[in-house]
């Protein structure tokens, strides 16, 4: 057996597309240079402990997937739409209004001055050490999308970003989004990661949000790529005074799924609500790493994640709450519950609390369990079939989180996918 390579292959450091403004090309080059000796995560890498074995990058997957001639997903959405194909936005397949106070632009369409300003801010919401692969996205993005909301701007409908990867050949895609929400602005951004084709591909995505004072941002993220897609994604958020960030991450497993979500509460009175649902089956994997930084005082964070693992699948949750010394009167709540649907499934959960302020309220809880036999018996004793009873109880575990998804069409999509999951998971029941 060939030993696993210990450094990121140099094949991964060749970006495609030179159509970017000079400041962004320069940033990309700089990040690439910094990754030359990037060690690949192993079992001994603390934040990849349970997941490194699923990461199987080959040199064939290093090349950027072609974007020329692709039309983009025909998926109809109840709102505005931006279609990404293999990491690059496709204007012909996108539909959004031309507004004065909300600017939606490709990186490649920015002036040098705008690009230079953006280059300063890219990666600013993430911690390069903790989110190793975000840097790779910055070294590789072919293009990207920047959404700027001017003060008080309100987008009247959700904006859907359909991230499609076409896996007709092996390769990779590096979608990049930067959202700058101005003072008291509001937006709901839905991101759907989907795939077509069967070849082994790698998706490395980064989405960043900066929320100015009083901004209100909702982000729904659906991870629904195929069994041939290894996906490492990161979401970074910084929040100023009295801003609110709400996220709903729904993930279906794959050969490798990793999402790092980091929220920094930097302004007094900011609040975030992070919901997450993960379901895995077969030999799938999913790893959520979240970090909430309470930097400023009087901020609230509420985090609720649920994992359901069937068959021989593996789900991981790592939730870190860091309360900085100045963050008095912080209120942090984290709940992680996990459901194992088979004895062969595995779930690893780890809450990490670091509290350096004394006047804080911080509660956390994590549980791992199976479907309750007594409850199952109660349901079937009323004539409900055993399969349906299993579905009812499994759904009960995540009902509340699904119900909270604020866009009905997304809720429906999630329910359809969940039903497919149940069909598979309870096939032999």
């Amino acid at each position, binding site marked *: 057996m060939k030993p696993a390579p210990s450094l990121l292959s140099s094949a991964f450091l060749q970006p495609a597309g030179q159509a970017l403004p000079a400041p962004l090309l320069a940033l990309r080059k700089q990040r690439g240079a910094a990754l030359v000796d990037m060690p690949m995560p192993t079992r001994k890498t603390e934040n990849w402990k349970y997941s490194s074995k699923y990461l199987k990058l080959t040199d064939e997957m290093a090349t950027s997937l072609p974007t020329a001639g692709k039309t983009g997903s025909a998926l109809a959405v109840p709102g505005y739409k931006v279609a990404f194909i293999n990491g690059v936005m496709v204007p012909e397949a996108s539909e959004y209004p031309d507004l004065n106070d909300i600017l939606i632009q490709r990186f490649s369409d920015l002036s040098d001055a705008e690009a230079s300003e953006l280059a300063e801010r890219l990666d600013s919401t993430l911690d390069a050490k903790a989110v190793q692969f975000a840097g790779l996205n910055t070294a590789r993005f072919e293009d990207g999308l920047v959404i700027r909301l001017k003060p008080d701007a309100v987008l009247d409908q959700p904006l859907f970003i359909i991230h499609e990867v076409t896996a007709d050949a092996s390769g990779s895609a590096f979608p990049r989004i930067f959202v700058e929400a101005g003072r008291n602005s509001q937006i709901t951004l839905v991101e759907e990661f989907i795939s077509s084709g069967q070849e082994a591909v790698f998706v490395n995505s980064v989405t960043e949000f900066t929320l100015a004072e009083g901004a209100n941002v909702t982000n729904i993220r659906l991870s629904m790529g195929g069994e041939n897609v290894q996906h490492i994604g990161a979401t970074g958020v910084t929040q100023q005074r009295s801003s609110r960030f709400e996220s709903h991450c729904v993930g279906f497993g794959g050969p490798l799924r990793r999402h790092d979500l980091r929220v920094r509460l930097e302004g007094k009175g900011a609040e975030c609500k992070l919901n997450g649902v993960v379901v895995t089956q077969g030999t799938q994997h999913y790893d959520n790493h979240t970090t909430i930084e309470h930097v400023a005082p009087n901020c609230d964070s509420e985090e609720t994640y649920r994992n359901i693992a069937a068959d021989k699948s593996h789900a991981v949750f790592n939730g870190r709450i860091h309360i900085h010394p100045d963050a008095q009167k912080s209120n942090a709540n984290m709940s992680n519950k996990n459901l194992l649907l088979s004895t062969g499934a595995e779930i690893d959960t780890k809450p990490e609390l670091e509290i350096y302020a004394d006047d804080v309220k911080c509660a956390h809880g994590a549980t791992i369990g199976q479907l309750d*036999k007594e409850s199952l018996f*109660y349901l079937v004793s*009323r*004539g*409900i079939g055993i399969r349906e009873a299993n579905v009812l109880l499994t759904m009960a575990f995540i009902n509340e989180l699904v119900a909270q998804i604020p866009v009905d069409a997304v809720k429906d999509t999630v329910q359809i996918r969940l039903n497919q999951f149940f069909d598979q998971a309870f096939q032999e029941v």
Partner: protein
Amino acid sequence: MLSIKNLHASVEGKEILKGINLEIKAGEVHAIMGPNGSGKSTLAQVLAGNDAFEVTSGSVTMHGEDLLEKATEERARDGVFLAFQYPVEIPGVSNLQFMRTSVNAMRHHRGESEMNAAEFMKLAREISKQVDLDPAFLKRGVNEGFSGGEKKRNEIMQALMLQPKLAILDETDSGLDIDALKVVSDGVNALRAEDRAILMVTHYQRLLDHIVPDFVHVLAEGKIVKSGGRELALELEERGYAWLGIKDDETAASSALSNSAN
């Protein structure tokens, strides 16, 4: 209708039922009494099909068919209903969703069309009134946060919705105050019908003041040690289980007096 022959059952390798024989005809109401731990709930659970209990020998037939080889849900669809001594709480599944799924599973089994939401709500409202439960409870999780008495009334409500052939009521009277006891026994009496049998498990005789049984059986250490008419219950109340040479922590009579303390 129901014929139990020499039924033995154990849990975790320990034999609990040690040869039960019982014949129940349609239209009859049977009461099973006995001290705590004598195996009353075990019998009820075995009849409903809880596989935590292993039937080691004996047979149970209902309408001539082998009941024991059927899955729990099949027994339910054939008309077996168990009102649990300790109904489980299921947060995340609403009572409404639960009962509608149940009613429709039964209808489906009978080849009838599903009840739509409006029809179901109408029925559910009516019956919830009958057992004195606020219809608002339908929206809550199954038994979630219910008081002991509400749970028992919810069990009777389900029996009334499902109209079973054989209703097994496991201590549906315990934990009820006098008013709730009245509501529950009115519900049970409403269930009495020519084509239906009722098997009531009770620790106390007081329920039998409201629901008059045709037969009373005394269960002790996994066996029926005495059977008789309703006068047997009265005699037990007066003389206690010790009269039959049965050990009990509390006598039937004294516990009957402490009913509202539950």
